[in-house]
Each structure stands twice: as C-alpha cells, then as structure tokens.
C-alpha cells in the first residue's frame, strides 16, 4: 500500500483525537468523581442508581413518619402515665380510707378527690400534639372528652361514654375501632380499595379504649372516669358528720365500683403497656430504617462514585498516551526528504 503524507497525517489526527478524547474522559472522571456522567455511559448502572436514590428518598420519608408518630406516642405515653398514676392514687386512697377510716368520715374528701381526679384525667387526655388531639382516634380536630352540661356525664366526641343498647353504643364502637394508618415502610399495599392493615402502622389512639366505654352486666359504667364520678356522687351523698352511706344499696354499689375502678386501672395499665410496646416498635423501626439508609447510601456511592485510585491511574495513563502521541506527532510532521536535500 502506498503511504502518502496526508494519509499519515490523517491517521495521526484520528489517533490524536482518540487519545485527547480519552484524556478528557479520564480527567472528567477524576474531577466529577462519578463513574458515569450520562445515562448512555452506563444505562444499567444509571437505572440502578436512580432506583436506589428513590428508595433512599422513600426511606427518608418513612424515617420522618416514624419519628413524628413516635413523638405522638411518646406524648400519649407520658400523658397516660399521668392518668395511670392519678387513677392509681385515687384507687389507693379509697383502699386507704377503707382500712384507716372504717367510720367513713373521710368519704366527703374522697368524693372531692374522685371528682377532681376525674377532671384531671379528662384534661390530661385532652392533650394535643402537633395541633391535633392525641386521644381522639382519627379525629384530631375534636377534643376527645368533654362534660355534658345538662347531665354532667362524660362525653367522647359528643357521645356519652356510658351509653348502652342504643345507637350511641354503635357509634362508640365505631369510634373505638377507628384507625389512623401511617406509612412507616412496612410495604404499604391495598386490597380491594382498602389499605391492608398489616402493611401500615395504626397510629390511632382512642380515649375510649384507654378509659373504657359502655356499661357492664350490672349496669355500672366501664369508663374509669365515669366510675370515679359515680363514686364521687355516692361519697358526696354520705352523711357529712358520720360518713355513713345514704343506704345499704349505695354501700353495695360503692364497693362494687371500687373493685371495678381497680379493673379500669388494670385496663389503663394495659393500654399504657400497649402504647409502650408500640412506641418501642416505632423506635426500633426508626433504627432499622436509618441503618437501611446507610446501606442504601453505600450502594449508591458504590455505583456512582469512582475509586479515586483507579480514576487517577486511568488519568495518568491517558496523560502518558497523550504525551506520547504528541511526541510522535512532532516526528511525523516535521521530516520529509525535503529536510535532507542540499
């Protein structure tokens, strides 16, 4: 094959262009510290990186949701601890009075204690977190508990908690069963247009489930506050001087309600324990998600970030090739037979 001057130069130009291009790519890799700078450079890695970044973003949301929900549960747990202590103290006072004051002279005081404790419990459970009532189930806008001005009965979102056998009972049951699901990264899914409860966290806390609602077989209220209010009524009707019950039936009822207050306290303790375990779950979930974030971050960096040692070696090699190409170029371009003519 005949090799001409321009052929030589043309081949040289192409090769120089290639090594320059390689040098540019290598330097770009070192400077950007990215293994790829466009989707086309590595479509599979780019797709994977975006998927991981999406996963990272979602996980951040789940962490945020878990943290916020944990805050709500922590508030609820604190308030419920107060409630538990208040009711426990009230129940203890009844027991102490029974043991230390057989005559019942302190029953008027107990009446006061019961009503004030009931008031305190209601106020405690009407706490708000992030502008919403914590114990209102899925209705954060309405305070959970209030007093019926006419009857003085305890109401939950406007419905008497001691209702029985009526439409109100159904409403109370519906309110008690309310859910407020939170997406905490448990694989949110729906089935037949309904959120599958196992894939979300139920953050609804209903005051009804804490204090109880409805009436039992004896016709007595189940709600701890209502029990205390009834006890307060009975104690207040006792003789102011002697402390004797108004009648034997009232004594019987008071004794029965005292036992039921202990049962209600037990229910409150159960609710407190449940809150505690749910808060613990949220805490663990947060730790799990945070760990997952670290893992995802590492995976993203593995895909996107260059190994600097490799990148710099590659750059040095490209620079070496470029220098060599320039050196050869100066030899190719300069000499011809013309240089040796005399």
């Amino acid at each position: 094959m005949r090799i001409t001057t321009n052929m030589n130069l043309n081949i040289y130009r192409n090769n120089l262009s290639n090594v320059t291009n390689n040098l540019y790519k290598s330097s770009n890799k070192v400077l950007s510290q990215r293994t790829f700078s466009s989707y086309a450079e590595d479509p599979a890695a780019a797709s994977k990186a975006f998927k991981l970044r999406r996963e990272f973003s979602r996980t951040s949301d789940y962490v945020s949701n878990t943290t916020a929900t944990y805050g709500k549960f922590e508030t609820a747990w604190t308030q419920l601890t107060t409630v538990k202590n208040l009711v426990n103290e009230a129940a203890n006072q009844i027991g102490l009075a029974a043991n230390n004051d057989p005559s019942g002279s302190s029953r008027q005081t107990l009446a006061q204690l019961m009503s004030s404790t009931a008031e305190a419990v209601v106020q405690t459970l009407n706490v708000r977190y992030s502008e919403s009532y914590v114990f209102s189930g899925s209705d954060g806008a309405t305070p959970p508990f209030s007093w019926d001005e006419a009857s003085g009965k305890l109401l939950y979102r406007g419905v008497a908690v001691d209702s029985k056998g009526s439409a109100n009972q159904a409403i109370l049951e519906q309110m008690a069963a309310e859910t407020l699901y939170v997406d905490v990264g448990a694989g949110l899914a729906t089935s037949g247009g309904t959120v599958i409860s196992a894939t979300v966290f139920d953050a609804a806390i209903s005051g009804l489930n804490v204090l109880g609602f409805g009436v039992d077989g004896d016709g007595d209220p189940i709600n701890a506050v209502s029990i205390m209010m009834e006890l307060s009524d009975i104690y207040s009707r006792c003789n102011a001087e002697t402390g004797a019950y108004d009648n034997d039936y009232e004594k019987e009822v008071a004794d029965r309600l005292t036992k039921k207050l202990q049962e209600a306290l037990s229910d409150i303790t159960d609710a407190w324990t449940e809150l505690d375990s749910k808060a613990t779950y949220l805490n663990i979930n947060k730790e799990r998600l945070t760990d997952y974030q670290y893992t995802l971050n590492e995976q993203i960096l593995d895909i996107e970030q260059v190994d600097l040692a490799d990148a710099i070696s590659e750059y040095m090699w490209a620079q070496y090739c470029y220098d060599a190409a320039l050196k050869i170029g100066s030899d190719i371009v300069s000499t011809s037979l013309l240089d040796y003519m005399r």
Partner: protein
Amino acid sequence: MSNISTFGAFTTARLGITSSQLGLNVTGNNITNINTIGYSRQRLDQISFRTGAINRYSNTLPTVGSGVLCTGISQIRDPYLDIRYRNSSTQVGAADAKLSVLEELSQIIDEVGLNEGDGILEAAFSELFSALEKLSLNADQSDLDTNVMGYAEQLCLLLNSYSQRLESLVETQSNSLNTDVNRVNDILANLAEMNEAIKVQEMNGQSANELRDQRNLLIDELSLYMDIDVEYEYVSAGAGTKVEQLKITLADRSWGEAVLVEGQNCRDISLDSDYKLHLGALTDLKGKEILPGTNPFSPWPNDTLGGALTSICKMLTCAGDYDGTTTKGIPYYQAAMDDLARTFAEAMNAMNKGDIVDENGDPIPGFTLGDDLFAKNDGSPPSDPITAGNICVSEKWKSGDVRIVGSFIAGANADPLAPPAPNSKANDNILKMLNMFDGNHSFVNGKFTGSFQQFLQNTNSVLATDKRTTTTLLTTYMVAANDIYNSRESVMGVDLNEEITNMMQYQQSYAAACRLLTTFDEALDKLINGTGVVGR
C-alpha cells in the same frame, strides 16, 4: 536516428527539456495542492516519439526515436474506491445525524448527575411523594395540603418545560433539515453546472482534472445526505465524438429510477409539512423541464432514502411503539412525556373525587367529595387529554376550594342529622394515593407497566440505549469509512517524499536534456566549423 537531419537531434533535446519542464510543473502542482481537500495527484503522460516509418525500406541504418512527447496530464483515482467510500459515507451520515438528535434529546431528558445526582423530574416526583407522606400524618392541616400543591405545581411546570424544550428541538431539527435539503439542491445544481463545464473543457481538448476533483468532492458530500448511485456514461456529442456524462440516481430503485443528475440536467428535492420527500421535474440549466410528465414516484418514501436526510426525517416523525414504527424519534419522547403527565393526572384526579361511603364502603346517596387536582392550561376542548405541555394544578386546588381528600369514609358522628363527613385526620385515601404512586400503571399503549418514576427511568434508559447503540454504530462506520478514505488517499493522495523524488528526477532529466543539447551543439560545431580546415 532514422530519417536523420542535421538538426533533428536538437528537437529531441528540446522535447526532453519541455517534458522535464512539464514534469516539474506537474510536480509543483502536486506539491502545492498537497493540502487541497479532494485533490487527486496528477501525472504527466508521455510517450516515446518516433518518426520516419515510411523510410524503413530505403534506409539501412537502425531506427532511433525522436525524443519524448507529452500527451496529457491525467489524475490518478480509483472509481471503485469512490463507490465504496460513498456507500460508507451514507452510513456515517445517517448515524451521525441520528446521534446529533439523540445528543440533543439527552440534554433535555438525561438527568444523570443533575441536582446532586437526584435528577430533576425524578426528584420532583419524590418530593411530591414526600409531601403526600407528610400530609398523610396530618390530613387535616391545610398548610400541608398547600405544601403538596406547591410540589405538584413544580412538577407540572417541569413537565411543561420538558414539553416546550422537546417542541423547540423539533423546530430546530426541522430548520436544520430544510437547510440540508437546500444544500442538497445546491449540490445537485452545482453538479449539473460542473458537468457542463467539464464537457466543454474536454471537448476543447483541455484536461478538466481540477473540475473533476471539485465534482467528486460534491458527490462525496451528497452521499452523506442520501444513498446514491453514480454512473459514468459516454454519450454522443455530435460529429462522431463521444463525451463522458455523469448520472446520479437514488440507490433505492424499488419505486422506480429517480435520476437526480444526468449530465447538465438535474432535479430539485423538497419536503412537505409531513417531512415527505418530493422530487421535482428534471430540468436543464435554463430551468426547462426535460421529458415533462415523467417524474418518478412522489412522495418518495423517506425510509429508503438513506443518509442524513432519512435519519433526521425519521427522528422528526417516528414515535416508536406509539405509532408502530421502529425508530424512537423526538415524537416518541414527546408522547412518553404526555403519557406520563396524562396517566399521573388522571390517576390523581380519579382518586380525589367520589361518593362518601359508610364504614362498610357503601356509598351514601347524594353525598360526594373532592374534585380534580390537575387540569389543562391551554384552553383545549375538555375532551382532549392532558399532556405534558398543558398540565397544571387546577384552579380549585389553587384557590383552596378543593383539597386532597383524606378519606371518603364517613366518620361516626354524635349528631345523627349532621351530613356525613370523614373524620378530620382520616387518611386512608392519601395512603391509597401513596400506594398508587408506586403502583403499576400502563404506559406506551400497554407495552410498559410500572410506576411513574419507573416509566420516567425507562424512557431515559430507552434513550440511553439508543444513543449508546448509535454511538457504537457511528464509530464502526467511521472506522470503515476512514479505512476506505485512507485506501483512496493511498491512490489519489500526494506524497511529499515521492514528489520531491520526482522533482529531483525531473531536475536531473532537465539538466541531462540541456547537456544533450550542448553535446549536439559541440558535435555540430565540430562538423560545421572544424571540418575541412586542414591546410588552411
């Protein structure tokens, strides 16, 4: 020397000097044109000159030639390599044009490395999702709803911007295509004029090497735009003379033979608004139509045209899986963005309006909730779908008349006469929206199923793969074209060493011819002035 005359040898020496002089001229021309694009090296054609054949029976002396004759200056070029180079050039033109459009598309759609690696549109979807997650915690807080609306508006504006940039790209490429068509028409007209000039020059006995080089350059350029066949025919020029005639046709003959240039006749090409190629009438240099009514099939199918014109036409018209074509041109990416915007808006709108239901999921007659979150801002008829270009947040959502519905399930209410309404913090509908966000949707007429962001990445991936494949193809074609270019250069290119050798050779032969002249002169001097002087 036959038929020898006293001064015949002077002619031999003179012819030697002349041919060496011409040889030096040709070498000089070659050297000075070493960097002229398309220049084919030239060579002095010379033959040995001999006279006196008629005297061969009357002369017993051996026959000697009378020197050298220069018969012409020819150019050294291999037509077969030209054909191969132009075929390869067509492939390079097609791949290069396609890649340039794909590069421009990448600048719009490829989000790798942008926004600290999170992408732009991708991040907008994620941010909207995060805002919805926040709202799900406190569905009753209107500021969180406004927050979602803000991110939704940002997403709409981004989709609008993508659509607008794609539309601008169509316009730019369309203008570029028209420029290419104009250039092709210029080339065709120039070729016809050059054919005429070459014909006239060669009929006058002059060489038209330089004009041929220029013509070849134009044909090379034409081959980038379309796949052509080049033929050289010899046609009668009258008086028993034949002249060479160049004929260029479209390589694809399945729709008939489409002659683009034939001698000094050529035709115009044009594109209609659908980017279909129309072939004009074959006209002579004065614009007069040759053989009226015999135009080839028109419009000519673009996909058989080859070269850059076909590539750009396809990138401007083909929507890949959306219109059943194999090329994924700009319309594919426009349709994909529209698909994404429409599917997203319709899904969100559908989830934000409906009947209020009881706790069992049964609708409560006469009570509905919610309205569209997304609408159109281009005033198109309501029946027209939402597109990436016109998607916007609905006016009702903007004004606060509509909010994201937390739930359609009526909550328990103490007042039996109160209208049914969901509880303030009920969020099951938002959770369903979140689930829908990452759920499966149908795109590309059912050919892709996945979430919005997965579809966005799939679109990116399709573009990246196409770009990668085209880059590989272009590299392969360029290597092949470069090889052929070098082969062609090997034949037609000027080599400096070779020319300098020739220069020295002609210089020496010039000196030798001059020396020959001196020798003859001295010999004759002896004959004329030194003979017969004995005894003077």
